[in-house]
């Protein structure tokens, strides 16, 4: 099992921006005081609804063939 990162309460207070910036959504760090666990901080997982991808593209009005040609060109170059 992966061990959770541990920081002291002082580090947590003074380096909060840096510590939270390094965490991925859903990842946690344990905060300790005098060597004992005080609590756990978990970075929130942001969730979004999927947009109407197809609807957004259909408004643009060009043909599927022209679009697919561009997709193929970019993939061939990559």
């Amino acid at each position, binding site marked *: 099992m992966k061990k959770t990162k541990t920081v002291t309460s002082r580090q947590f207070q003074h380096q909060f921006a840096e510590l939270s910036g390094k965490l*991925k959504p859903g990842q946690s760090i344990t905060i300790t005081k005098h060597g004992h666990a005080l609590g756990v901080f978990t970075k929130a997982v*942001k*969730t*979004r*609804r*999927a*947009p*109407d*991808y*197809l609807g*957004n*593209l*259909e408004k*643009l009005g*060009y043909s*599927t063939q*022209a*679009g*697919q*040609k*561009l*997709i193929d*060109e*970019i*993939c*061939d*170059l*990559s």
Partner: protein
Amino acid sequence: MIYPDLAFILSLLVKGGNTEKTSTLLRDLPHPLPLSLVHRLQIENGLLRSLHSSGPEKMIIARNSLLLWRQYLREEIFAIDKFDLEAAFAQAAAWNAAYKIQPPPWGLLLHLAVAATTGAKFMSFDLALRKRATDEGLAILPPKL
């Protein structure tokens, strides 16, 4: 976790043959979609090159696609995450060296390697990449074409 290949993401930005399928597949999946810096460079480079190329229709499509790309990043529909690209490059190079037939282009093989090194479900319509993913024991989406 899910991880799409380049053509999969492009089909959300440019209307192509797989756009309807990708749109339907992603409808119920959690967003933001995790993308890598490799996606970002390939997409922005490809669209910018098309924007400055000849052919008015291609330029218009590229411009609209670039606007959508920027919008989805701003709205956090797409998120550029950190991946161990060093490990992914090493994995892609190892696969490339082991191919007995013509390998897929390295830029596409790299996405499969990123998915493999992170244990993500790989999203692709490319037959060669899907076969490689299956051979490596990765889950693929869509499960069937």
